[in-house]
Structure formats: structure tokens, C-alpha cells
């Protein structure tokens, strides 16, 4: 399976990829994007099975990227990995079509709970 990791922080992309491995999901193809616009383009060019995206990014943020994807008719599985884990943010994420929101800092267990059943 192919997973697209979108975050403007290289550090955070590396941590997400490392945590995926720790959670037992290390065997998948990983594609990286630096912002929402890059993410949007790579969903089209790479056809990932799942997008793990930060919320706050320059150029285009994660929620706008998700909105653009759904407006284009893409149903790609999408989840947020963000420092803002309030009820309000979770509601906004769900309303926009996200399957989950993982709040930072996170553990491998948090990843497992969110991804359970989503990755074959």
C-alpha cells in the first residue's frame, strides 16, 4: 500500500514515518509532501491509499487540501496528524471528510488505534 505523509516540517515527516514503522506499518510505500498544494498534486500523481496530513502548512493547509480533494471527487482515505487535538478541530476534520485526527505528541499505540482496519 502507498501512504502519503504531508507536513511542512521535515522532522515531523520523519517522526510520522518512524512511528508507522513502530506501529507495524513499515512495509508500505511512503511518499512525502511539504504542504497542502504539494499534497494535492501528489494524490493525483501517486494515487496513495492513505494520506496522513498536518493541519497547519504554508501555501495550502491540510483542511483546504482535504476540501479540494473531496471537491474533485477524490475519496482517498485522509487523516490528520496535528498539534491541535481539541473537540472543535476533530469536528471540523470529520465534517471535511477526514477519518481520524491524531494529536501530537503521539505514540505508536495512538497510530495503531487510528489506522486499525484502514490499511490491509
Amino acid at each position: 500500500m502507498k501512504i502519503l505523509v504531508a507536513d511542512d516540517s521535515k522532522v515531523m515527516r520523519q517522526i510520522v514515518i518512524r512511528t508507522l514503522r513502530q506501529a507495524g506499518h513499515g512495509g508500505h510505500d511512503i511518499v512525502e509532501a511539504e504542504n497542502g498544494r504539494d499534497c494535492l498534486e501528489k494524490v493525483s500523481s501517486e494515487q496513495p491509499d492513505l494520506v496522513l496530513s498536518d493541519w497547519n502548512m504554508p501555501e495550502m493547509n491540510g483542511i483546504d487540501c482535504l476540501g479540494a480533494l473531496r471537491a474533485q471527487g477524490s475519496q482517498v482515505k485522509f487523516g490528520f496528524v496535528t498539534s491541535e487535538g481539541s473537540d472543535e478541530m476533530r469536528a471540523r476534520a470529520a465534517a471535511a471528510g477526514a477519518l481520524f485526527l491524531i494529536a501530537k505528541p503521539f505514540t505508536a499505540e495512538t497510530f495503531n488505534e487510528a489506522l486499525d482496519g484502514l490499511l490491509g
Partner: protein
Amino acid sequence: MTLAPEVTDVQAIVEQVWSSFLGEEEPLLPRLAEPGQFAADEAWSAAVSISGGWDATVTVELSAPVALSLTRTMLGLDDIDDAEDGDVADAVGELVNMVGGNVKSLMPGPSVLSLPAVAAGRAAHPSGAAEIARFDGIWAGEPVRVAVHAIPQP
């Protein structure tokens, strides 16, 4: 008077974020420090602002050795010399993003979290900014500070 987060909540957030990256090596412990200039000869700092339902700036200050250790751990580098300025900026920026995002979740909304701004130096605040919460810590003998300042209103 601006609504302020509880210092105990700020401390809990910083400790939680810290333990997920550096806590296995050494714990981050609270330390008594006077307000005023951050006590480190060489420092890195970063800031995020929160605006909307609540307006404030969250800053982190780390002595240079802490910033390098944080970068090494977050990037999984074997050798600390491999860390470039951009890597340290990424790591310190992500630290303030996580602390700021969690502080934002405690306070009235809706509000927006800015992107982090990072500097190779201690933090400086405008003359009208009022410190409303501060956590001073010590990690491996080096100082760490997280502060929340109310943004001066016109």
C-alpha cells in the same frame, strides 16, 4: 486582564511533549528561575501566535546543546555534527508547534495557530507584551523555558 493558561497545565503539556522525544534519556525537571532574560550563552528560540477567540504568543527557548540533542533525537541522527541549521530550525519549530497547539486547545476558541518562527538566539518580546504564564525547566543541566505572552491590544 487576559485569560491565562494555568502554569500547571503549561508544565504538563511541555513535559508530555518532552517525554515523547527526549524523556527516555533524561527527564525534564522544573527549576526555579527569575523572569527576565533567558539564561543561556547560546540559545535557540521559536514562537507561535494564537489568534481569534484568545490572543497570545507561545515561545520556547532552549540552550544550544538542548536544541542539538532535540534535533538529533527527532531526526534520528547518529552524529550530532550531522545537524544543519535547517534541521535544528525544523526541530525547534516543531517543538513550539506542539506546545502551542496543545495550549491553544485549552483556551477559548475558535482561534488560529500560526506557523512557527524560529531564531538562532533567545526570545525577545515587544515592550507592551505581558507574560501570563511561564515554565522554566532543566534538562541534562541545561535550561529550557516555555512562556506565554498576551499580545498587546491597541
